[in-house]
């Protein structure tokens, strides 16, 4: 092996959006690690200024096609906070159901098509289907059921149109929802099988002293409400989020990195953090199966995130079944009325990839005067780089291609959503003179 090696991935695959990895080694020492987010910036916070309050959830959905609901929901709650609107328990229940749909869809996609291929030695879910056809088909059906929930509640799975500040434009038809019950019940059983499958994977022995950050709620598994907690002892209301977390802008990225302040340390958000903090709030089946799966929580190995996702899919199915059974369509109103007024509001929810923060200021003209959006991946970006610095030395005995592949696998633990973070991620591995160019990239970078 040459003394100065470079590992690089010019275009990360099986992630949402565009990023690259660059790692430069000086002997066994990691000289430089860069997760380069080169996806072009899109400036949502600027577009939102001067828009109507009711337009915001339609616009913020477009930040991410994989998790539009997380953006819509956080916008709605934050604006309701500014307007002094409190939604009814029925609307809250439907919102949780919508969130269940998105968690199922997003997690099933990541587990089966994006992440499992790394553990099973395939370059894609599609090629994995040649040997693991049943597992892939099961995953696709789970994903489809999540999308069906989104369709019934939101009108469509990508960029739902039925989400409004105050509630829903139209309440879903209880008959349509109840017709989905057999599929949801199948989904609950199938997701238990998925957990059993993924918990048998071989996990690299790689632990980090993560500061796990997520929402925590005394009764509910955290989706749309709760206090912000961290392993380092933080326990604050959403309103204080910005006092403890700040976004910094680095040269290699069109996404903003978040840091915990004042200590300026990285932290982890996402399914592993949620399971670690909120095991007690999991649904009964999710908890029972999690206890039996052979991985113990709390875990500081983010390769276990695929297990955490599978547990959350069980949880989401079980909760969805309960919510659909309880729903009778008799809402007093599908949407709480409100009048535009000046004010400021913020909210934190849990997107599939982790904590998401929104703040809006409404001007005297009733239009959006200022918007701030902190997506999960920009919060994780610093942690991904910290992980790489610690992980790279463990893969030095492998050749460049294999070491690079392992680093990419590690990055996928985060299910990074680069489109989100650009309100944007890049892997390159630099081992010095030897060009690592096995790929036939049809584009130049």
């Amino acid at each position: 092996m040459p003394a100065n090696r470079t590992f690089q991935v010019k275009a990360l695959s099986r992630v949402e959006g565009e990023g690259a990895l660059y790692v430069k080694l000086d002997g066994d020492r990691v000289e430089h690690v860069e997760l380069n987010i080169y996806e072009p910036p899109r400036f949502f916070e600027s577009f939102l200024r001067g828009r109507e309050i009711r337009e915001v959830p339609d616009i913020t959905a477009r930040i991410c096609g994989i998790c539009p609901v997380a953006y819509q929901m956080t916008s709605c709650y934050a604006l309701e906070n500014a307007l002094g609107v409190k939604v009814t328990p029925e609307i809250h229940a439907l919102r949780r159901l919508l969130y269940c749909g998105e968690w199922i869809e997003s997690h099933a996609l990541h587990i089966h098509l994006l992440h499992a291929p790394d553990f099973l030695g395939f370059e894609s879910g599609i090629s994995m289907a040649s040997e693991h056809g049943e597992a892939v088909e099961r995953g696709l059906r789970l994903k489809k059921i999540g999308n069906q929930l989104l369709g019934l509640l939101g009108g469509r799975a990508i960029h739902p149109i039925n989400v409004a500040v105050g509630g829903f434009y139209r309440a879903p038809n209880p008959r349509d929802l109840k017709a989905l019950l057999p599929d949801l019940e199948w989904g609950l059983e199938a997701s238990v099988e998925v957990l059993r499958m993924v918990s048998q994977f071989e996990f690299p022995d790689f632990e980090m002293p993560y500061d796990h950050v997520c929402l925590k709620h005394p009764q509910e598994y955290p989706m749309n409400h709760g206090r912000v907690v961290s392993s380092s002892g933080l326990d604050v209301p959403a309103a204080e989020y910005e006092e403890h977390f700040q976004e910094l802008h680095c040269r290699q990225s069109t996404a903003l990195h978040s840091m915990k302040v004042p200590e300026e340390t990285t932290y982890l958000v996402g399914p592993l953090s949620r399971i670690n903090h909120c095991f007690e709030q999991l649904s009964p089946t999710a908890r029972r199966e999690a206890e039996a799966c052979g991985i113990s929580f709390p875990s500081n190995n983010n390769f276990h995130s695929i297990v955490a996702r599978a547990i959350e899919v069980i949880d989401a199915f079980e909760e969805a079944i309960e919510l659909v059974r309880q729903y009778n369509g008799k809402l007093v109103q599908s949407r709480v009325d409100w009048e535009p007024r000046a004010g400021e509001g913020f909210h934190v929810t849990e997107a599939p990839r982790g904590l998401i923060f929104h703040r809006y200021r409404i001007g005297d003209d009733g239009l959006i005067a200022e918007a701030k959006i902190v997506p999960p991946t920009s919060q994780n970006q610093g942690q991904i780089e910290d992980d790489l610095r610690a992980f790279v030395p463990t893969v030095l005995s492998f050749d460049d291609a294999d070491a690079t592949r392992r680093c990419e696998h590690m990055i996928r633990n985060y299910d990074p959503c680069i489109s989100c973070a650009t309100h944007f991620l890049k892997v390159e591995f630099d081992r010095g003179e030897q060009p690592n160019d096995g790929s036939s990239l049809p584009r130049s970078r």
Partner: protein
Amino acid sequence: MSEKPKLAVFKFASCDGCQLSLLDCEDELLAVADAVEIAYFLEARTEQIAGPYDIGLIEGSVTTAHDAERIKEIRQQCKFLVTIGACATSGGIQALKNWQDADEFVRSVYATPEYISTLGTSTAIADHVPVDFELRGCPINRQQLLELIASLLQGRRPSTPSYSVCIECKRRMTVCIAVARGVACLGPVTQAGCDALCPAFARECFGCFGPKETPNVISLTNHYQKQGVDCAHLTRLTRSFNANSPEFKEASDLLSGEQPSADTGDH
């Protein structure tokens, strides 16, 4: 069947939602992967098979100088180039920056603006290279995507409607919200393809499939103005996910200039 047609999916400035639509074809995905070789699709697979490609699906708009060059290289590699979605077809929501000072935009989002390189505009793929077919929508309709792939395999032109959302609304027997409730709805001038979703959920169409063939947007907005709809609201309505499509742009520019316009008439 070693010579399956090669399909490639490329991303520009976008939310990934339209390419996700291909993975959202849960029932058909494995069949599609059987019928065509998914040769380049970073979101779904690591292996990258070199071009040329038979079908190139382009998601996203051009917002950087680098991307303006990249699309030209891609065009040369693709026999049939299809834009998928509002970003690729008209510039997307990020085209709102075309109306503003991009430097000011960068400053307002990023603390260290000198690290960001971006063009002042977000433009449609067709503004840079010839496009063979476009799939509309924010996001696209996956049935239309399947129709596109099937038609290309069969060697025929894809069949997607060019009429307005109103036709779909009537077919669904949704009560017209513009007539019954006086809500400003872009259905009459927006291309069908969503199955008139928004009116069916008791809200206005906000034009996410872009203008239909020969729309008369200004006549429609004039009509709404006469009904008392606020001009600034109409500006925002026509200036969203397809803001940069010529017909919507013309209307929103006229509205924001608050110039009196000649009603061209036929609504």
